[in-house]
């Protein structure tokens, strides 16, 4: 444990006259640092250590049953020269960009529209929310069956666009996955934008109105800039979240047809737990973690997030 530098002479207690808090000395810490131990042990033991473990396992050969055997850089060589790795990275990137492009305008507009109070809006917001209450595997099952060209919503004589095998056609499956993800998560982001829009001072709109600004002008000159932190929060969630879409895609398409929807985490799972190449899967997992960390840190830097302490912490 690091020792805090005592800046107060021994014997000083509590708050000094003049309200200067004197809380540096080891003896005067109001709360023992040991209370952190349970959280650090749990989080460290089941999140941080495994993350390090993934790096370590990536240098081994392990089939999931026996003992991992040291292998060196073979897994990394195999993973980095495998076209499928780059393919899945590409698919992940497409889903990342696609979900952002679909979800951001939709949830922004819906959130701003729902922001004013009112019974009708409250009712609508409540219904929107239902999609978020379903688990990812439930959403996947629903759309898998709903989009079935023969038995789903298309029925024997449904509209032509539904008779297309959206999930079976490698050219359309990614778009379908992106839209289904949006169906599931737009309610969450709508909620964020709704909460954000509610905090915009009404006086700004009144001033703009007096200046003769129209609706569109007010949206772009007031609403959008005022929502910039919400946009950052929501976008970060979408982008980082797109690295974790596993259950939905796993149940919906299992990565297929072919490799068309094989996202990075899915590729990792299939390599590790279906093909029982745990070492190789760990190398993929390491890539996943690195991409996730870079993305989070990059977004935090880019958006000047470090300035907005409290918002950053809520992320």
């Amino acid at each position, binding site marked *: 444990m690091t020792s805090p530098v005592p800046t107060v002479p021994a014997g000083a207690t509590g708050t000094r006259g003049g309200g200067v808090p004197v809380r540096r000395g080891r003896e005067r810490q109001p709360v*023992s640092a040991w209370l952190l131990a349970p*959280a650090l042990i749990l989080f460290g033991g089941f999140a941080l250590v495994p993350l390090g*473990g993934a790096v370590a396992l990536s240098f081994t050969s392990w089939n999931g049953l026996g003992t991992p055997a040291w292998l060196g850089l073979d897994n990394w060589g195999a993973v980095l020269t495998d076209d499928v790795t780059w393919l899945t990275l590409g698919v992940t990137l497409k889903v990342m960009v696609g979900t952002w492009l679909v979800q951001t305008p939709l949830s922004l507009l819906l959130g*701003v529209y729902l922001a004013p109070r009112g019974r009708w809006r409250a009712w609508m917001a409540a219904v929107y929310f239902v999609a978020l209450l379903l688990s990812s595997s439930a959403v996947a099952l629903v759309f898998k069956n709903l989009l079935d060209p023969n038995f789903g919503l298309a*029925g024997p004589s449904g509209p032509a666009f539904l008779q297309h095998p959206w999930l079976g056609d490698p050219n359309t499956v990614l778009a379908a996955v992106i839209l289904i993800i949006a169906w599931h998560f737009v309610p969450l982001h709508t909620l964020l934008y709704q909460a954000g829009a509610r905090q915009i001072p009404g006086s700004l709109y009144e001033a703009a109105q007096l200046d003769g600004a129209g609706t569109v002008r007010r949206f772009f000159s007031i609403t959008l800039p005022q929502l910039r932190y919400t946009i950052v*929060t929501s976008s970060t969630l979408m982008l980082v979240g797109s690295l974790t879409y596993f259950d939905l895609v796993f149940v919906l398409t299992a990565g297929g047809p072919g490799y068309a929807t094989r996202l990075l985490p899915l590729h990792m*799972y299939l390599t590790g737990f279906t093909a029982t190449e745990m070492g190789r899967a760990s190398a993929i997992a390491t890539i*996943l973690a690195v991409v996730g960390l870079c993305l989070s840190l990059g977004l935090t830097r880019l958006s000047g997030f470090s300035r907005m302490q409290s918002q950053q912490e809520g992320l």
Partner: protein
Amino acid sequence: MVTTEATAPAATTPSEPVQRRRDRRRVNVPGGLGSLLWLSVVIVPVYWVLVTSLRTQQHFFVDHPLGLPTAPTLDNYRQVVDSGFDRYLLNSVVVTVGAVALTIAVALLAAYTITRNTSRFVARSFSVFLLGLAIPLQAAIVPIFYMITKMGLYDTLLALVLPTAAFAVPITVIILVNFLRDIPRELFESMRVDGAGEWQVLVRLVLPLSRPAIATVAIYDGLNAWNGFLFPLVLTQSPDQRVLPLALWAFQGELTINVPAVMAAVVLSALPIFLLYLIGRRQLVAGLTAGFGK
């Protein structure tokens, strides 16, 4: 009418609100139409699930997909319940309650320490939690599988509780810290002056005051634990230890062509959360927004 503006200033002439109202109503036409469109996008699949779950399998192939069932039946629900649904429900409840209780317990201690202890070690630990938010849990699943197997916990519910709780710790600590920071320092100090120990402060001051934040974050963590899929998929095997999201997936594998039964399973799996939503909508929504700042 939805035109009452909470922030309307006091100094408005009588004509002004009228004008604003008219203006706003004009503004709402595209917005209203767009949101109605989205409403149908949300409702149609949900409606389809409901009516499909009430069809017999024979009618499923001939009925209009969006028509009312010609011969409504609850047989699909009976079949789902008979297939061990109560067991999966119980497992989900055990895992969710266990993980949330564990997370909140350790996170509250941590948040209390972080807000009240200024040492560098504590500050660094807080940064670790912040960084922890960026870890995709998928990246850690292989070593977690290794650890759980070595600990002899494979295929137990405890194997789901521990990692689920661990990955909920960062966001929980951060939300609680944000909340506890707002408790005036004088309250702590006066309790200490009165001779209360750490634990007494925790139990008699921190716990009661942070109850709203705990409820909020518990809902958020609970929803995540309830819907968790990857940990159950990798860390359990036997039907006895199956939780609902996994049971849905397995059910679909067993009954590939019985779509109405699968939809009944979807409805039943969503029902507990939906009932909770009806009861505690406000808290649930607050929980979700608090989870992401704002």
